[in-house]
């Protein structure tokens, strides 16, 4: 259950949109921020807020790769595996990330700090290879630079 204040805020945003569907991404992202991921409960709540069926919310949720329908770590790393980044060494970069985090692409570290997700295109094709950590976009990124970024996050996480 989301807090009443969040519910009211979201209701306000839905009412302000031209069509409720238009507010769907906004609502899903806020619910995801609250729960850490878009849980089944959150998907139902989104449907209620938007006047859509749960299936219609699922359609949208599974369309956007930054809406997570499974629990994820505190930091989600998206590594582009589409053609431009792949041509610039994206595959090597992804392997490095896997090694450094000790997980396979798609997995989450045991401590729940990181989830590593390959994804096709982060819209940064001119600066491949690209990764995105949380809301921040990086590129071009060498394996060494990626290592430093993760180290920093690990240090912060330990604070």
């Amino acid at each position: 259950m989301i807090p009443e204040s969040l519910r009211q805020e979201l209701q306000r945003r839905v009412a302000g949109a031209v069509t409720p569907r238009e507010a769907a991404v906004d609502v899903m992202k806020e619910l995801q921020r609250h729960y850490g991921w878009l849980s089944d409960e959150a998907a139902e709540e989104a449907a209620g807020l938007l006047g859509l069926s749960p299936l219609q919310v699922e359609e949208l949720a599974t369309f956007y790769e930054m809406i997570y329908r499974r629990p994820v770590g505190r930091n989600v790393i998206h590594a582009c595996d589409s053609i431009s980044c792949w041509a610039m060494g994206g595959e090597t970069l992804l392997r490095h990330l896997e090694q450094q985090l000790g997980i396979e692409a798609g997995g989450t570290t045991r401590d729940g700090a990181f989830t590593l997700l390959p994804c096709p295109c982060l819209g940064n094709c001119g600066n491949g290879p690209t990764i995105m950590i949380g809301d921040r976009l990086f590129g071009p990124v060498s394996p060494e630079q990626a290592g430093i970024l993760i180290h920093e996050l690990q240090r912060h996480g330990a604070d």
Partner: protein
Amino acid sequence: MPIYNPKFMPKLIIDDITVEVPEGTTVLEAAQSVDIPIPHFCWHPALGKAGACRVCAVKMLDGPVRGIQMSCMLPAQDGMVVSTTDPEAMAMRKGVIEWLMINHPHDCPVCDEGGECQLQDFTIAGGHGIRRYDGKKRTHTNQYLGEFIAHEMNRCIQCYRCVRFYQGYAGGTDFGVMGRASMVYFGRQQEGPLDSPFSGNLVDICPTGVFTDKTARFRARYWDYDLAASVCPHCSLGCNITPAARYRELLKVIARRNDAVNGWFICDRGRFANAAVNAPERPRQALVDGKPVTVNEALDVLVLRVGEFLELHGPASLAIVGSPRMSLEGNIMAARLCKLLDAGALSYVGDAVQAERTMGAVSLLASGNAASLADVRQADLIVVAGCDLLEEAPMMALAARQAHRNGARVFVVGDECALDGARQELYESQAVTSLSDIPLTEAKRPVVICGTHPKRPDTAPLMAPLFGKKGLQTPVKFAFILDGPNAFGCALLGREHDAVPLSQAFAGGAIKGLISFEADLPAELTAGITVLAATDWQPTGLMQRAEVVLPCTAWVEQDGTFINNEGRAQRFKQVMRPGLPIKGLDPAGHPPRIHRNDAPGGDVAPSDRVIAMLIQRITGDTPVDGPLSGRWEGLRSLDADGEGKRLTDAA
């Protein structure tokens, strides 16, 4: 929607043939118009284009666009030179089919779609015969979607037709497309029966075997079916269907295209509510006082008993009862029988209010003002009054939705808005209390849809001012929802032969006995009346009470005519031979060891034949004219594959 100039007709050349088409026509449709087929999966005439499957590639040799193009996405333009046989285009189509087949299971031998599968046809047509891919195939988990539709997602080729139909065309919200990594899944969020009353169309519209008709699962192949052009008997709209049968068993019903009526689709009632045809309890044996006899014996007894009855009580005490569920032919013959016996009453309807409203509707529909379902789909303003469309005429609700999707405004008049169950799901509507609240003068193609159900408020006084109303851009067209597939035909016959509603006929107290043909009458109405004989293929209360029981064929077992709610006469053809389905017979008795010309349980005739045989017996052996003679002569040549013939227009 782009606005096209209807007068401008682009001229293009496709495979050396010059084609002229209205502006806005796609190259794919232009090719089809001169019988050049171009393979396609995602494009569908009722759903339009999606550009998802890439299989309709053609090569543009000259003109405003050049090179390989998707013919479904490209509007035909002046000066285009198109080749469908260009090697580059053929190679592209072959490549696309090969990649679609990469993940498609090679399970045609155990797939119900096999033989009626577009993917099969186009794979072969495209020249992809040998699999080169030997990797693993993508697999999915299937869902339980209810008792009517089987789900096999591995067969999906991602054409998006299903979701475009289900949500877009039909307004369903519980089925759609979900993604995960590189996979897309067409199904429900959680498994369960599909909600939409039009869900069965998924079976027809999916170009491969993801959705198949569960009720006919693993029963027969396309080339085994008995198929014929038929008409749905489940409401007054007369949607066109192709029933498929085998071994005297109705297996399934497929929608049949009629652009003037149902378009490409039918509702789930029309598709899935036909178990009665195969039902073991269906009457198939002629009976006299409960004892099995041959049809001839039953008719002989009936002639005797009718004679006795008339002698004892006089002709005025006999009623002949036809039915809006029976073919026009049967009802014509019922009128003739009534005349021959000089019976006291001819009746087609039980309820007086129903009869009056139907009669009123039929007399209001005249040349040009009857709205077909196509007119409803194209309307720009729709008024619904006194009916629950989803309940009484589901495809009418779907037609109204199409108008609504194209911008039509829908108004519901009176305080009976709650009755209009369709409005919540299929279209938004505005409730108004009187006609004056509706901006009819702004409409170019207004249609008014009215119910006639006796339990609903009478809409006639409300609607009367609309007929011949002045000051409109276009006269209003009307659609009435009637009670039964041949209610219109019965009203015409009723007017011609002075039929009366049965309740009214009984009111005088003179009627003591009746002979009924495929009639559905409430038990209280006929209490105390002798049922001399009843003819039906359904085990109605009248059939149980009748002294002489004469079973008849179901509509799929005979040729006949129904006149739908707009006055459109439509021919339906015999699909299968009558008789007990082989499935369900005692295996020891099959094949039969004794020679006979008819199948077990097959000694039944269409109602009009039953009446003709009766008339022949009564009059001596003079041959009886066929039902479609005299004023009905013109319907003899009616083509079951055509759009039907509107009697309101002919008048």
